[in-house]
């Protein structure tokens, strides 16, 4: 026979009964979510509303632009002036980086996952070591090398640099993901007469879509965000991307054109926001590390 337990002894956290504890928990969850929402959205919101104000209106630190001070003039920056060019360069570089990163890491990831050769783990770990170097250290040597090869001030040059930086992470991602695809799938393609390349193209690539998107997102974050490498490898103004460009803009002394800068900044925030909303599950999938 079972012992008689005093059921009221079993209690929730801090000795509160379970129903109340549950309610408190739910309350805490909501409060936390609200807190984080405000914490992150507030600066973004501030950026948005400030970019829609005229310069004078900004002096008065208010929550919303008033009817008169509401203006879209700063968004002209996209079409006029250097900023538009900077954004365009950023877009080109980012796109290029994404394509290269996906292509290279797919192939490398496949090799690591499927083909038998030694020291794979060590190779991958070795790649990770590269992150330990501060970019400014690599800066000047890179500058000199790029100058030698003639890639200085070219977008292609920056794309190569950024692709290289993304490598360790995305290769690791692809490798681990492809490992989860059963070999039986390729094998049935081989049995049907496909070559290794065909099987790779028709079986592996469609199946790695989540990892591809995750790698692309990661490459996007890296390239869109990059300041240091663009600063070093694209010293000439016309060629530079958004990050160093806007920095120079702000730093040109007094009367920093906040309106333009904020408007341009808003524009660079929109793609991330969209990706974060629509592709969040891929970001999570990509960051699921199983072992180091």
């Amino acid at each position, binding site marked *: *026979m*079972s*012992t008689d*337990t005093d*059921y*009221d002894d*079993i209690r*929730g956290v801090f000795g509160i009964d*379970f*129903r109340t504890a*549950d309610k408190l928990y739910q309350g805490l969850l909501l409060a936390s979510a609200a807190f984080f929402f405000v914490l992150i959205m507030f600066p973004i919101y501030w950026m948005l509303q400030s970019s829609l104000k005229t310069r004078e209106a900004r002096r008065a630190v208010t929550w919303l632009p008033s009817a008169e001070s509401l203006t879209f003039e700063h968004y002209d920056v996209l079409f006029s002036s250097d900023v538009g060019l900077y954004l365009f360069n950023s877009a080109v570089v980012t796109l290029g980086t994404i394509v290269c990163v996906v292509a290279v890491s797919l192939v490398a990831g496949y090799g690591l996952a499927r083909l038998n050769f030694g020291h794979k783990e060590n190779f991958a770990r070795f790649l990770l070591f590269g992150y330990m170097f501060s970019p400014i250290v690599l800066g000047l040597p890179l500058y000199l090398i790029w100058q030698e090869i003639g890639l200085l001030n070219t977008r292609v040059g920056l794309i190569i640099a950024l692709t290289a930086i993304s490598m360790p992470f995305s290769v690791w991602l692809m490798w681990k993901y492809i490992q989860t695809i059963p070999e039986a799938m390729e094998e049935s393609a081989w049995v049907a007469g496909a070559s290794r390349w065909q099987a790779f193209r028709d079986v592996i690539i469609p199946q790695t879509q989540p990892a591809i998107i995750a790698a692309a997102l990661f490459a996007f974050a890296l390239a869109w965000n990059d300041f240091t490498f663009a600063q070093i490898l694209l010293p000439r103004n016309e060629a530079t991307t958004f990050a160093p460009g806007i920095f120079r803009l702000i730093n040109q002394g007094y009367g920093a054109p906040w309106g333009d800068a904020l408007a341009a900044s808003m524009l660079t925030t929109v793609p991330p926001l969209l990706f974060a909303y629509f592709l969040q599950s891929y970001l999570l999938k990509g960051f699921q590390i199983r072992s180091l």
Partner: protein
Amino acid sequence: MTVTLDNVTRVFGDGSDAVVAVDGIDLTIDDGEFVTLVGPSGCGKTTTLRCVSGLDTPSDGTITFGDRDVTDLPAQQRDIALLFQDIALYPHMSVRDNMAYGLKIAGVPKKERYEKVADAAELLQITEQLDKSPASLSGGQQQRVALGRSLVRDPTVFLFDEPMSDLDAKLKRELRPVVEQVTEEIGCPVLYVTHDQEEAMTLSDRVAVMNDGELEQVGTPKEVYDNPHTEFVASFIGQPTTQLFDGELRESDDGFTVAFAGEEYRVERPDDDLGAHAGGPIRVGIRPQYIDVVDDPSDGVAATHLLDEPLGDETHSFFETDVGEVTVVTHADFVGAKDEYGLVVDPDQLMLFDSQTGEQIGTSTAVREKKYAPSA
């Protein structure tokens, strides 16, 4: 202590999307009784179990443990044990710590905890595994550990959620007596959920057959087998399945006959239910074990032999007839030769069902009892 389910209902969603997973279940489980909820996937048995466990709350109805109303009580406070299909042993704890977990939460001192674990491990024959991690055990061993985890807590109610679904046939047969042993040892009410009717029949004191959210029948395994209350129960319980046909009930001066597949048989039922259905269509069921195969196709239902499945101690033979495919359990040496045969039915074993409600008309056991009743 008796577990009582009174009109337990569970509805998911609302408005036009509402899905009634469990519809007014009434069930009692006495102390020491082993009751199995059995039915096809999606019939609501797992949902019912979760309501009893406290992991889910019924939309209507009550659940009581003895005189305690536990309907709204959270799972932590019900003092139950629950065995999952996918086991859920903590990979980062040793087997011993896994088994001791419930006691640890209850605040039992370490020495006592480990003593109880040792006792349970001995009963379950897993003493060797105590220091290992769950990942290194086989599926069957893991289930024993899970059983041990529950055994150690000496719960007031023991619940099982399809624990053997992931195991192969051999393991299932090995584990069944262990389950019986453990539940007997604890002696509390047991509610077991499965879709495997063989498991239900071999383990239970009583079987509760569920379909589409409703209880079709509750009874001992023998009752459910011999006297199914509905067509569904007849076809769900028993292997191979009850063979069902469309037929007609005819009334004449001599009595009642049922006609199907071109044959006509006399039937009797002690109650007068037959009268209400006379002249109309009915469903006729017969278990494959009660069909005989004769060489003359004009004797009984004409059938063409399709194939045999020899099982060693008996054979399952498949025949094609005018009313569809029929399965017959034949003797172990039967070989069909794809020929023409006749299928003869034992009229005393016929089960009759209302063609609309599926309910059994009369009780077939009564007929048998008349014939096989022990001499006074």
